[in-house]
């Protein structure tokens, strides 16, 4: 569009101020900007459970409706929104952790590898992502899928930037090793 509507040109932080003043149009604009990426984040984090992810997204936007004053206007909105989302997921993981301690086993990638007959690198990647710890998964997804900056990620997960970088590096390294080994196995199988 040559002429963009006024709200579409406003930064997220100003939209939040307008939401605080009761502007429904600003809320719709902010929802349009972030609903897909946040839903994607929730879906990946919550074991691809779409219904649960939609509930989490709904709850997050309810927080924006009812407590817009919680947002610090000096911060970046995306950082704040993802840190709220991260905390929501963390609580859910804690709940699951308690359930696991009650009897469900934690399965590692290699155990799963034996159980599942994986036929592609894609399936292997899905499985590898599922086995990542909650914080690592968040860091990984925010960096490589949502393409946030290292600074933003460190603010979201409350980690120093150096720690975020080292975690990303070692995750990438593990992924590279596991995928290359898996590809060798696949090649051998096909022969």
């Amino acid at each position: 569009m040559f002429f963009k509507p006024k709200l579409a040109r406003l930064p997220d932080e100003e939209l939040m101020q307008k939401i605080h003043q009761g502007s429904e149009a600003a809320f719709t604009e902010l929802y349009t900007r972030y609903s897909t990426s946040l839903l994607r984040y929730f879906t990946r984090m919550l074991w691809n459970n779409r219904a649960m992810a939609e509930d989490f997204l709904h709850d997050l936007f309810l927080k924006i409706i009812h407590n817009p004053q919680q947002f610090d206007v000096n911060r970046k909105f995306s950082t704040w929104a993802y840190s709220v989302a991260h905390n929501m997921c963390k609580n859910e993981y804690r709940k699951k952790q308690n359930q696991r301690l009650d009897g469900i086993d934690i399965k590692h990638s290699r155990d799963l590898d034996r159980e599942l007959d994986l036929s592609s690198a894609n399936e292997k990647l899905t499985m590898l992502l599922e086995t990542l710890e909650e914080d690592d998964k968040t860091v990984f997804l925010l960096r490589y899928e949502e393409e946030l900056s290292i600074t933003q990620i460190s603010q979201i997960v409350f980690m120093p930037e150096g720690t975020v970088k080292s975690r990303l590096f070692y995750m990438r390294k593990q992924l590279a090793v596991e995928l290359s080994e898996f590809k060798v196995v696949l090649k051998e199988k096909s022969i």
Partner: protein
Amino acid sequence: MKEHVWNEYEVFERLVSEKRYAELSGDELKLVNQFITNEQEYDAFRMSGLDMKGWFRENPVNGATDKTLSGLKREFKRAHQPHVSIAWWKVSIGYAVAAIVFGLGGWWLGQSEKPTTLTRIEQVLVPDTIYVATKPDTVVREKIIYRDKPVILTTTNPPNETPVTKGVSMKEKEELDKLLVSGTE
């Protein structure tokens, strides 16, 4: 790994995704070698990155449904509307405005009217005409009317206390005799 190396991690990430090992310049090779040890490792990094991008592309998450947004909009309206009904709101505003207007009006009237000192006005008739004495043209004749007026005469002698005996006249005696003879009145 040394701490200063992490400062260049983002550059390493970018190089891995954009260039092959053979395409790296001398400085870039130097930087990359701080993170990896050989070309195979670099290639494994690069391939895993490409696989990762492919995975994200092939496993998309569709956007939220419109139902979610419409539900949230309803909640937004509810959260931002006042708890009283519009009619009640209008009435209360009307009362408030009227009270303010009357209050201000009264204050203004009180301010504009300066206190006045009370003065007593008396009408004093001052004759401004001089009458010249004239002879009356009507003659009033006085007529003396006599009226009886009982006059109590007092005497110095006390009245005679002996009962007055009344005698019977001849005529009365005759009539009495007639009555006695006839026996009737």
